[in-house]
């Protein structure tokens, strides 16, 4: 079975946030108000984190797109009292919204802070309501949600492959919305266990690192650190 993972080349990331917008559209992420967002209530399954290093004139800005790292050893899954957040057989860390009791224990246990809680009933501006994605369920208030690696796309791709009478390919058949939308081609997605896939090759790069990998969470999102362009 495939082990889905992602590689993000930080040398290529321009910080345009196309992935952020694509994700919100794809996954029916509710809108927030500026005040609520300021108070840490906004939901954004993928966020562009910025790190400003140094001082003028020697200043450098780094961008890190941050979202669920789909750990092989996820701290959030361990603590969930009802199994609402779990690791599915393909290694994706998934959420069952109708089973979530909203205790937010998973959100506190996750060292990446990529879990989001529905503080209110989800809201969209009137004009946006027609563009909700029918493939993704809308979450009620009081439950936790997060990046699913666009799991609904995997289900579609699997059905398509079945219709065409072939195996699901480890690359190309299934990509999350963020990867598809990246104009700089900084994100790659595929089967990390398939030695011929781009992701598995990129993941072996000497620039490859995983966030907080010393915690033993075994994330399946690999970053390639800046180096080629900045030369240190």
């Amino acid at each position, binding site marked *: 079975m495939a082990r889905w993972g992602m590689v993000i080349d930080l040398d290529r990331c321009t910080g345009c946030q196309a992935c952020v917008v694509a994700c919100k559209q794809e996954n029916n992420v509710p809108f927030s108000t500026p005040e*609520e967002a300021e*108070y*840490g*209530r906004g939901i954004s399954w993928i*966020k562009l*984190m910025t*790190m400003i290093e140094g001082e003028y004139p020697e200043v450098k800005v780094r961008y890190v797109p*941050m979202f669920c790292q789909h750990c092989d050893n996820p*701290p959030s899954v*361990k*603590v*969930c*009292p*009802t*199994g609402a957040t779990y690791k599915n057989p393909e290694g994706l860390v998934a959420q069952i919204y109708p*089973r*979530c*009791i*909203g*205790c*937010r*224990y998973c*959100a*506190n*246990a996750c*060292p*990446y*802070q990529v879990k*989001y*809680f*529905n*503080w*209110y*009933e989800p809201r969209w501006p009137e004009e946006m309501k027609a563009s909700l994605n029918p493939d993704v369920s809308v979450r*009620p*208030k*009081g*439950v*936790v949600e997060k990046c699913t690696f666009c799991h609904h796309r995997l289900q579609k791709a699997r059905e398509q492959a079945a219709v065409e009478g072939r195996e699901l390919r480890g690359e190309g058949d299934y990509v999350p919305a963020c990867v598809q939308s990246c104009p700089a081609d900084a994100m790659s997605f595929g089967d990390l266990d398939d030695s011929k896939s781009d992701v598995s090759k990129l993941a072996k790069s000497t620039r490859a690192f995983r*966030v*907080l990998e010393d*915690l033993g969470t075994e994330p399946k999102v690999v970053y390639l650190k800046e180096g080629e362009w900045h030369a240190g």
Partner: protein
Amino acid sequence: MQDKREDAVLFDPILKTGKGFYLVALLLLAIALWGLYAYSLQLKYGLGVTGLNRPVFWGFYITNFVFFIGISHAGTLISAILRLCRAEWRRPITRMAEMITVLVLFFGLGSIILDLGRPDRALYVIFYGKINSPLVWDVISISTYLTASTIYLYIPLIPDIALLRDRVTGWRKRLYRILSLGWTGTERQHRRVEIAIAILAIIVIPIAVSVHTVVSWVFAMTIQPMWHSTIFGPYFVVGAIYSGIAALLIAMALIRRIYKLGDYIKPIHFNYLGMLLFVMTLLWFYFTFAEYLTTFYGGEPTEMAVFWAKISGEYRIFFWGMVLFDLIIPFAILCNRWTRTITGTVIASISVVIGMWLERFTIVVPTLVNPRLPWDRGLYFPTWIEWSLTAAFFATFILLYMIFTKFFPIVSIWEVREGRERGLAEVEERIRSYLPGLENTEGLPADKSEEAESARWGVR
């Protein structure tokens, strides 16, 4: 003298109720209803009405949960230990301690329900419970404790209910008749009750220890900075007993004053429990010092961010408030017998209760505010909803406790009588049995048979 032996004053709260009781009850009821209104808003609009956010997903409610469960160690645990140690002075205070436990556990569990985004699904923890989760351990451990301590409250109540049954009329008589389970006070019934109490007192101690250990593990099992600590289990248990004794002392002083029980709850009770509270002050300080020194000396950056947030950052008022209320004030009052008076121990106890709430808060919130990754630092400002619900929980607890005293004797009458009738002789005999040179004064042979020995030391 004859009148005192009748213990009439112990029946008074049940037989007579003054205007003051109703006034206080109404006030508390008003606070409780206000809390109900606040909760209705939270149910309607969601947890957005609280001050919680990302990354501070837990705040007042979880602090209250840890705090209330901590208070629950007042009763059953302390009463069980005192019974097992045959501390004769326990007799007038065990009941009030046990009642704190049983009641306050509901407020601990209630705090968790308040915190849930989907309280309608609370029972999923049982239906779909996953044993991996420390929250499920909590549910198991707390419900076991609640069951055990309810039985432990009820069994010593039976003889007293029977006493009441014979004194009242009407619907209350019917109620007491059912609850007294046909108690007539025979020797056989007495023996059974005493066996049951002895067994429960032993069982309840490990359960009580497990309860706050497991509560601490909710935090310690995660890998978040300054939560992931091996010392948390015993540290929480010590804190729980500490706040529990303080709550008991406050209850004792109030009951003594309101129901005029000065003949039963005496300065010596406050002195003894005050000494126990002092020992817990030192133990609590020892654990706190060990915890913070280890963190500081290690100097691990993510832990230090939390450390400095507590010591000199945005949570310094809570941290140093905790030090003041949990260490400096109780230490100063309790370390000498001149201030370890009734007033003194009560002031120290109020201080400890406040301090322990602050301790719970400084454990829960600063870690969440300072997560491992440098982004999304949070701040937490509780809203009036959280303040109201916290106040409502305290008010409802006091209200239910008051109502309990109107239905059941808050001082165990039969145990007090037993102390008067049998305790004195027993203590004398006990001392004779372990001091050399006193064996023959009663005309008993020095090498007493094993049978007589076990009759004395068996189940009592």
